[in-house]
């Protein structure tokens, strides 16, 4: 039997070859056949999840909620490199110096990355901004968000903090951070679907042992992950509850 493994499309494309290396390692140590199928867009991923085609996924926090609550997925591990955070940035020469300087009607550059967009909109709330009173420019990458700001096409941009920090120095020097989130509990998770239910403990053990030797440490480094940390069911449930509070909007 072959299983389908995929990676959330928000993951930096720079790391994609390393996911193939990781997949090869997974197959070797688990004795299972995984087919790594990369989706280039969130809508393709959602269709695949809806059709129950996915067995193993490196999921963003937004999709993790659906996978746990509606599809019976179990979180195996999370990266031990800190939580997902968001940054609101403006062009270096922008007249805005704090979030509260932005006004309704502002033009906001963002991506299709659902959890980063959600965190970003929370950070804009103190200025009275919400989805009803801003103009959103959806970009395909964080580099394009930065370009929107340089060109004066947007007043502020929403970035995944890690992606913001990985922008090249010349790009970062043309941007200025207004605020960076410190939420602490929102993570990506490597998750297994119901067809892998009897392999969860074995997979988790093998993943948390990664990095104990030079070869697997190198694979992790390629993914931008220092180590995998085991997670229990309640930790993920807690994050899902927290995401629900952030996305809650009274009728």
């Amino acid at each position, binding site marked *: 039997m072959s299983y389908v493994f995929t990676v959330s499309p928000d993951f930096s494309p720079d790391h994609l070859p390393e996911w193939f290396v990781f997949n090869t390692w997974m197959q070797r140590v688990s004795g299972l056949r995984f087919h790594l199928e990369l989706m280039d867009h969130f809508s393709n991923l959602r269709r695949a999840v809806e059709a129950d085609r996915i067995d193993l996924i490196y999921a963003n926090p937004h999709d993790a909620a659906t996978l746990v609550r509606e599809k019976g997925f179990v979180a195996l591990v999370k990266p031990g490199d800190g939580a997902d955070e968001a940054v609101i940035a403006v062009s270096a020469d922008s007249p805005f110096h704090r979030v509260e300087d932005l006004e309704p009607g502002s033009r906001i550059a963002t991506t299709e990355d659902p959890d980063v967009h959600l965190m970003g909109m929370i950070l804009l709330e103190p*200025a009275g901004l919400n989805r009803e009173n801003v103009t959103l420019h959806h970009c395909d990458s964080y580099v394009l968000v930065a370009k929107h700001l340089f060109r004066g096409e947007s007043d502020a941009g929403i970035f995944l903090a890690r992606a913001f920090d990985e922008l090249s120095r010349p790009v970062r020097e043309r941007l200025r951070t207004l605020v960076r989130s*410190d939420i602490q*509990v929102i993570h990506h998770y490597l998750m297994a679907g119901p067809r892998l239910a009897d392999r969860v403990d074995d997979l988790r053990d093998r993943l948390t042992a990664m990095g104990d030797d030079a070869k697997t440490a190198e694979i992790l480094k390629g993914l931008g992950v220092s180590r995998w940390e085991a997670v229990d069911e309640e930790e993920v449930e807690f994050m899902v509850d927290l995401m629900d*509070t952030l996305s809650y909007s009274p009728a």
Partner: protein
Amino acid sequence: MLSDMNPADVTGDYREYTLDLFGIGPRRVLVTDEEVPYPDGCLIVSRTDTEGIITHVNRSFVAMSGYTEDELIGAPHSILRHPDMPRAAFADLWRTVQRGEIWQGYVKNLRKDGAHYWVKATVIPNVRRGRIVGYTSVRRKPERRKVEECIALYARMVAEEREVK
């Protein structure tokens, strides 16, 4: 049980009130006029059991409350209750979450040192295998205009509640 606030913990001039806390009874609180600004970018997160007893706090919660984590875990969530908050707001909160629904509102919280901070709070029931096992409360930085509206609204509500008493 929840002990009275200690004057030695309070910074500057303070006023004294006695709150009648649901399920706990009277608590003497000491209140100054100082507002501590909400920290940019942070979420203040806590969890309680179904009785409102704190079971988890994040580091932003600890920092903003002025209490230590040891003082907070096991304490009732009303340790943060400010006398300027109307009882009706919390009654609505509890009615809502006990129905299994999400509650959202603006809350003025009292710190250990008598100062206060405003939050936009969202409380969600933690449903596990169909049963509510506790509540998660997530606070974020409020829009100032909303805070000003609530200051006026809550003052009217508190005055009405005192008249009825």
